C-alpha cells in the first residue's frame, strides 16, 4: 500500500474510462516488452512506525557522544531553535523555486535579505542566492575568474582547504588549466612564492581566510599584486570569523565564497550545506546562480524577482555562467534567519566567544609536555598542535576517551603526520576544554 496515492479503485476505473483505456498497463504501451526491467528486487514496504524505528536504531549507532573538537571548515555551532522552527514551515520547505513571483514573495524576499546579509558580512557589493556548498562555490568562483579574465592559470594557496583543492582539481581535469599550489609559510600565505608566480597568464589567486590551519591573514598585499598583473583574487572565508576579521572587501578581494554551514545549519554528516558567493558589482553579470532583485509590480508595489536570468542555464543553456539549477535556497533562508537572530551585536559576540575559547584551549594544550603549539601566526577558532607521535593514532586513542580530538593533518598534508587540527566553538565549555587537555596529556605521556 502506498499511502501517498489518493486514487481509490473506483477513481482508477473512472479515470481509465475518461482516458478510454482498459488498464493502467495500457498507458505504458510505449514501453515495449523488451524494455521491461530484468529485475526490480527491492525490499517490501514498511509502515511509517517501522521505518522510524529502524532509523532510530541506525541513528543511535552514530551517536558516540564524542565531545567534538573537530572542524576542518565545518563547525559544531549551536543552531538556535528559531532557525529550525521557521524552516519547518511547509510554506518554505515545500515550495518550488520562485519562478512565479506573485506566489513566491516569501522565498524571494527572504533570499534578498540573505543576499544582503552576506554582503554585510563580506563587505561585498552583491551576493547570489546560494550555491551548493563551500567547495563547489569555490569551483564556481574559479570558473568565473577564467571566464572574466580569459586566462588559464590558477594560483592556489596551500592554505586553502585540501578538500576544496581536491575537488577543484577533479572538475578541471579536462579543461586544460594550469594549477599552481603555493606552500604555506608559518601557517600563512607564502608571499614570496605567490609574488614570483604572478604573470599575465594568471586568471586568479585563490586564498582562504582563516586558512585550513585556522590561521588568519591580511591578504591586501596579495590582492594589490594580483590586480597589478590583471588577475582576480578569490577568497574562501569562514563566515563566523567575519564577525571580527577584516572583510575580504577591505582587502580588495574580487570574488568571495564560503561554506555557510556555520550560519545556523546542522552538521548533517556533510550536507545539505550552503555555498555563498559575493562579488564586486562589476562582476555581477558573470556570477553563477540565481540572484534576487528588488523591483516594483504593475501597481508600483515593491517586490522581488529572480533577476539577470539571462546568465542561467534555463535561458542561456550551454552559454550559461554555470549549470546550476537547484541550489541551497532553504539553507540560505535558514542562514538569513540565523543572521537576523544574531544581529549586529550577537554575531560579533559569537565570533569573540569562538576566538576566546580557542585561545584558551590553545594555551591549555600548549602547557601539556610534549605538545607544541605554534604561537607565531594568529588563529581564529581552530589551530594546529604538534604532537610527539602520529596524530591519527592519538586521535584514535582520544576517541576511546570520549573526544573527537581534531583532524590529523597527515591525511591531507605530506610530512605533517604529527600535526593535529583542533577546533573550539562557543559550545565548548571550560571544563570540556580542560578535560580534553587532561585526556590528551595522558595519551601523549
Amino acid at each position: 500500500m502506498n499511502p501517498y496515492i489518493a486514487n481509490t479503485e473506483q477513481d482508477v476505473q473512472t479515470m481509465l474510462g475518461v482516458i478510454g483505456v482498459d488498464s493502467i498497463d495500457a498507458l505504458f504501451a510505449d514501453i515495449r516488452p523488451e524494455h521491461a526491467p530484468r529485475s526490480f528486487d527491492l525490499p517490501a514496504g514498511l509502515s511509517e512506525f517501522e521505518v522510524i524505528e529502524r532509523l532510530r536504531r541506525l541513528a543511535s549507532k552514530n551517536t558516540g557522544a564524542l565531545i567534538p573538537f573537530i572542524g576542518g571548515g565545518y563547525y559544531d555551532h549551536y543552531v538556535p531553535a528559531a532557525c529550525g522552527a521557521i524552516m519547518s514551515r511547509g510554506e518554505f520547505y515545500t515550495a518550488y523555486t520562485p519562478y512565479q513571483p506573485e506566489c513566491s514573495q516569501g522565498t524571494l524576499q527572504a533570499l534578498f535579505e540573505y543576499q544582503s546579509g552576506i554582503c554585510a558580512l563580506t563587505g561585498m557589493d552583491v551576493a547570489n542566492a546560494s550555491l551548493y556548498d563551500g567547495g563547489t562555490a569555490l569551483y564556481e568562483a574559479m570558473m568565473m575568474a577564467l571566464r572574466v579574465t580569459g586566462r588559464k592559470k590558477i594560483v592556489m594557496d596551500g592554505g586553502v582547504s585540501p578538500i576544496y583543492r581536491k575537488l577543484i582539481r577533479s572538475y578541471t581535469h579536462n579543461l586544460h588549466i594550469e594549477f599552481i599550489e603555493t606552500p604555506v609559510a608559518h601557517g600563512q600565505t607564502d608571499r614570496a612564492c605567490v609574488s614570483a608566480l604572478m604573470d599575465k597568464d594568471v586568471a586568479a589567486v585563490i586564498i582562504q581566510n582563516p586558512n585550513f590551519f585556522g590561521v588568519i591573514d591580511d591578504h591586501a598585499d596579495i590582492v594589490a599584486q594580483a590586480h597589478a598583473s590583471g588577475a582576480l583574487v578569490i577568497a574562501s572565508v569562514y563566515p563566523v570569523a567575519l564577525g571580527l576579521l577584516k572583510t575580504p572587501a577591505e582587502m580588495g578581494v574580487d570574488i568571495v565564497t564560503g561554506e555557510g554551514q556555520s550560519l545556523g545549519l546542522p552538521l548533517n554528516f556533510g550536507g545539505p550545506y550552503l555555498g555563498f558567493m559575493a562579488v564586486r558589482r562589476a562582476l555581477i553579470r558573470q556570477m553563477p546562480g540565481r540572484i534576487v532583485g528588488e523591483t516594483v509590480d504593475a501597481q508600483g508595489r515593491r517586490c522581488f524577482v529572480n533577476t539577470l536570468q539571462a546568465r542561467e542555464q534555463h535561458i542561456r543553456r550551454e552559454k550559461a555562467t554555470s549549470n546550476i539549477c537547484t541550489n541551497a535556497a532553504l539553507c540560505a533562508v535558514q542562514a538569513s534567519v540565523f543572521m537576523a537572530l544574531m544581529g549586529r551585536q550577537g554575531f560579533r559576540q559569537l565570533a569573540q566567544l569562538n576566538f576566546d575559547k580557542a585561545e584558551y584551549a590553545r594555551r591549555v594544550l600548549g602547557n601539556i609536555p610534549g605538545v607544541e603549539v605554534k604561537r607565531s601566526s594568529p588563529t581564529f577558532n581552530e589551530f594546529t598542535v604538534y604532537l610527539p607521535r602520529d596524530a591519527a593514532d592519538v586521535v584514535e586513542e582520544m576517541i576511546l576517551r570520549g573526544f573527537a580530538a581534531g583532524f590529523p593533518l597527515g591525511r591531507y598534508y605530506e610530512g605533517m603526520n604529527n600535526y593535529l587540527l583542533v577546533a573550539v566553538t562557543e559550545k565548548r565549555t571550560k571544563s570540556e576544554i580542560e578535560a580534553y587537555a587532561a585526556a590528551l596529556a595522558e595519551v601523549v605521556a
Partner: protein
Amino acid sequence: MKLIFEQSVRGRQGFKLPDSDVPVTAVIAGKYLRQAELLLPEVSELDVVRHFTRLSRLNFSLDANFYPLGSCTMKYNPKFTEKAAAMPGFADLHPLLPQLKGGERYVQGALEVLYDTERWLSEITGMKAFTLQPLAGAHGELTGIMLMAAYHKARGNKKKHIIVPDSAHGTNPASAAVAGYQIISVASDKKGGIDIEKLKAVLTVETAGLMMTCPDTHGVFNSSIGEISRLVHAVDGLMYYDGANLNATLGRCRPGDVGFDLVHLNLHKTFGTPHGGGGPGAGPVGVMGKLEKFLPVSRVVKRPDGLFYLDYGHPDSIGYIASFYGNFAIILRAYAYMLLLGGDGLKETSDHAVLNANYLMHRLKNNYPVAFDRICMHECLFSATKHAARGVHAIDIAKFLIDQGIHPPTVYFPLTVKEAIMVEPTETESRETLDFFVDAMIRADALARTDPAAFHDFPRTMPISRPDETRAAREMNVNFFASRA
C-alpha cells in the same frame, strides 16, 4: 513587507549567547580586524519569528497548493521523512568523523543509510553502482560528463562533443559545456522523440555521448531507445540518462536494461524530498560496470564482518566531486521514503503518476491542444498558441491559475513547443484536485474567448502582480545596502 533590515533598531538583540567561561588570553591584532561595522539587523527573536512567519505566508507551497509543475515532480513530501532527518544521531554528525582512525565506528548508521541507498538506486535503475555525492541534478550531470570524459580518456578516445536533444532541460547542455564539451543539439521529430535521421547525421567518432531524458520533456517514452543506443554505442559514445522524469517508469523500465550507461536521479523529484524553495536537492549518479572504476571517491564499502567504511583508494576515480558524501539529510529522506514504499509502492507511484497525467490530458485536450496527441507518461504538454492568437499567452493562463490557488504549470518549456504548458500532476494528488484544476483551466479557456483583455491584470488576489522584471534587471538592486547607499 518591510525588510528585516528595515526593522532594525540600534541596540536591540534577538538571541542570548552563553557568557564566556574562559579567561581572555589573547587579542587579535588590529590589522586583522574588520573596519566596517557589521550591519546585520538588530531585532528581537519575536521580530524574527514574526517576520519570517509572515514572509512564509506569501508563498504558495505544496502543503497548501496544487503544484502541477511539469518536469519538477512536485509530489507530497511525507512528514515522517522530516522527523527522520531531525534525529540528532544524524543531524549532529560531523562529516570528518569517519575519516579519523577508528572514527567509522561512530557513523555506522549513517554509512548503512548510504550503502543501502546506493544498492537500491542501482536496482531501481539497473545500474551497477552509484555515487550519492552529487548535490543536485545538474551536479549529477556534471559528474556524469566527467565520468564519460574519464572513460574516453582511458580508452584513448578523442571525443569533442555531446549530443543533446532540443527538448532537453537547460542544465544538460550547460553541464556538458562546463565539463569542456561542445554541444550539438538534435531536433525532435513530429512525435516528440529524437529524430533518428538527424541524430545519425550528427553522430561521429568525436561524439562523446548522448544525453537523453527518458521519458523526455515532451512526456513521451521513446520506443526507439534500443536503436538510439545502438547508434550511439557504435561510435563508442555513451548513453546518459537524465533521470528527472524517473517518476514515470519506476518498476516499468530501467535505464540500465535499455542501453543507458549512466544516469543521474533527482531525489527531490522522484523520491519525494522537499524542494525547499529551490533547493537543496540531491542528484546521485549511477553507472554500468564499464564506468564503475571512474566513480568519485569516497565509496561506501561493506566489509565481510558487516562493518561499513569509506574507501578512497581508487586510482582511476575522477576524484572528489563534493566535499563529503552528498546531501546526506536529503539522501536520508529518500531512504526513508523507499523503506516505506518498498518495491511495490514505488511501482504504484509511477502507475498513478501516469494515470493522473493521462486523465488530465484527456479532460483538457479539447480546450488546450496537446503538443503530441498520444498517450503521455507522467506529464502532458499543451500548447496555448490558439489562446496566444487572441492575446492570451501561456503566462497569462499561469497568472489566472494563481488566483485559483493553483501554482501554475511549467510554461515555455520545453523550448520545442510554442506557448508550452507542461502539466505534471504527480501520483499524490487526488482526482478531486485534478478536477478542480481542470475546471479552472476550462474557465480560463472560456474567458480567453470572451474577454481576453481580462487576463492582463491577473493575478488579482495576491499581494503583488506582474512585477517589472526589466526594471529589476536594469537596476540590479540585489542588496539592501547597495540600493540604499
